[in-house]
């Protein structure tokens, strides 16, 4: 038995080389100047640069707004899809996931073009709408999964104990579906906070998000500053992951069973 645990060794080496080492590179580059000496210049540049700071804040704001929007729009969809009385067909569920298979950039371009045709100027509004459109399926699917697997007898037990339909939802269904909401939040927040191409298309380059700045710096050979910005983004990801892990520990408690 013990011998077979060594089968993971090649993958371990691969991971160290192509996952751990690259992340280490991000750290190393971000603490160096272009000549390769240790330096905090990249970070002090970020703190003093008003543009970078406001982009950073805007990125987080947009990501949070988009995530909330996805929850508000996506939760009812997932709820309706999972309710056997309201939706009987599994094909409807597939229809909601299907758009994800079409190239995201192409869809985004078409969305932007639709806005143009409708005479809506591209800006923050269209950015939010477009991003919500792109990531909505990622929110619907995990919530739907949890709701669909949820034992119906929980709701019946609550009703049996005197809960009105609204109370059943607030006290039972909603809390028990939180693990799905949380993984949906992760799946939407992470890509939106780091996106670059999508935001460029949706605002016609008017609004820059953090991803775009990283991309521009790397492409313009400002590797050290790009690495420092990447490290900041990593920090956001780490914090969100930590928070998600903590809150799902609190709520899950067998809710997924």
């Amino acid at each position: 038995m013990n011998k077979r645990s060594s089968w993971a060794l090649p993958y371990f080496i691969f991971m160290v080389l192509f996952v751990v080492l690259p992340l280490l590179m991000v750290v190393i580059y971000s603490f160096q100047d272009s000549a390769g000496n240790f330096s905090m210049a990249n970070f002090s540049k970020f703190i003093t640069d008003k543009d970078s700071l406001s982009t950073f804040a805007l990125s987080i704001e947009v990501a949070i707004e988009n995530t909330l929007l996805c929850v508000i729009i996506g939760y009812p969809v997932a709820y309706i899809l999972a309710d056997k009385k309201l939706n009987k067909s599994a094909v409807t569920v597939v229809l909601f996931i299907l758009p994800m298979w079409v190239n995201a950039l192409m869809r985004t371009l078409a969305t932007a073009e639709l806005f143009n045709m409708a005479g809506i100027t591209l800006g923050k509004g269209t950015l939010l709408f477009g991003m919500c459109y792109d990531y909505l399926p990622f929110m619907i699917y995990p919530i739907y999964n949890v709701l669909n697997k949820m034992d119906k007898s929980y709701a019946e037990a609550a009703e049996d104990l005197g809960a009105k339909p609204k109370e059943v939802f607030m006290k039972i269904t909603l809390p028990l579906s939180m693990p799905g909401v949380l993984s949906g939040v992760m799946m939407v927040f992470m890509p939106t906070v780091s996106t670059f191409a999508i935001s460029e298309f949706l605002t016609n380059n008017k609004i820059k998000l953090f991803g775009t700045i990283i991309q521009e710096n790397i492409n313009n050979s400002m590797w050290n500053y790009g690495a420092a910005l990447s490290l900041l983004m990593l920090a956001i990801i780490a914090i969100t992951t930590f928070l998600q892990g903590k809150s799902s520990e609190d709520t899950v408690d067998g809710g997924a069973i």
Partner: protein
Amino acid sequence: MTDRIINISHLSKSFPGGSKVLDDINLYIRKGEFLTLLGPSGCGKTTMLRMIAGFLQPDEGSITMDGKELTGVPPHLRPLNTVFQRYALFPHLDVYDNIAFGLKLKGVPEDEIDKRVSKVLKLVSMSDYEDRDVNSLSGGQQQRIAIARAIVNRPKVLLLDEPLAALDLKMRKDMQIELKEMHKKLGITFIYVTHDQEEALTLSDTIVVMNEGKIQQIGTPMDIYNEPVNSFVADFIGESNILNGTMIKDREVSFIGHDFKCVDEGFGENAPVDVVIRPEDVIIKSKLEGAQFTGKVKSCTFKGVHYEMFVDTDNGYEMMIQDYNSFEVGSTVGMSINPNDIQVMHKERVCNTFEGVMKSSDTVEFLGGEFKCLDTGLEAGDKVTVTVKFNKVDLLDHEDEAICTGNVVFILYKGDHYHLTIKTESGEKVWVDTDDIWDKNDLVGINILPKDIHITKTAENE
């Protein structure tokens, strides 16, 4: 009657697809009694419980409680509570919040909730478990919390849907005793659903035996066990030998090739009947003198308290016998049965009867297929009644050689042959006597020889 708490009348329910789950159920439940709905899976017992709880609406009929109509009232407004099959404890709430759930919704003051929760926890012997996470509890403990969560609301009626099914045998036995005691202490009405006949016999004041959406028998455990009204009940409750017999005259019945004295009257002379003999009621001795019939012991197995034997009788029937003494396999034994222990039942039917239509003078359509028959001289389109003897129906493995097909839904061993109930694709039932062994749910092909199909023209009564 004033002591009736629930009255169910003409209750019917079909599920999409047309199969009747409940078929004109009439039943009343007395205040304070422990009533059990007993039957095999799919007999409609859970459907009935869910209708009383309000999770399902009947197609027809009514359920009243204390004279007030319940149908149409949503579950949360019904003055009864349910203990669910797999407990359905809310996983995101601890023991206290689970039990307090109903009380909080009703707006009961905090300190009263505290009092009632700790009182009910004491009742189910789970004090000090208030803060525990429900997922950390064992099956038996979850069971107690589920009961506590229901009875804390002081329902007039407690519904229990196979509450012990998920527990292991030892735990189940313990909980049975506790449930019985709890029922006595609380004094409220229990409606209990189970497929376990032993559990039903142990717990209930009244047992309602159900099969295929119909009530088969209502009675006390003693009634049901000692005087089953039909072969289904006899077979489902306890072990039994069910045999074909003939009522020679009052107080005398013939079966397994012998005549016996019995206590039943009023069947008429030479009437075909079903006879039920419980295995423990056969007196078995190694002495052959004085025995009513003899036989050879085929097998003998120790069952803990008694021995269970299969004996081939002198006329070729097989009987199951339970006795405290063991008898050597291969030895010849003498047996007798007390008149009191012979339970005689009317036969529900003596042959198959179908409605059919003539397709030509020698072809008749029934059971969704066209059968060749002897020339009748009738014309195509004539409506006829077809009768076929149980032992004249051929069952085939190969569907393609059969005229119609069906599934085996019920098997009864009659000592020297099997009596099968087949449900055809057209939804009709065919009863078949056969020596071949089939399993429940087997798909069988049905064929009947032309000479075995008896046809009479249906009298047209306009």
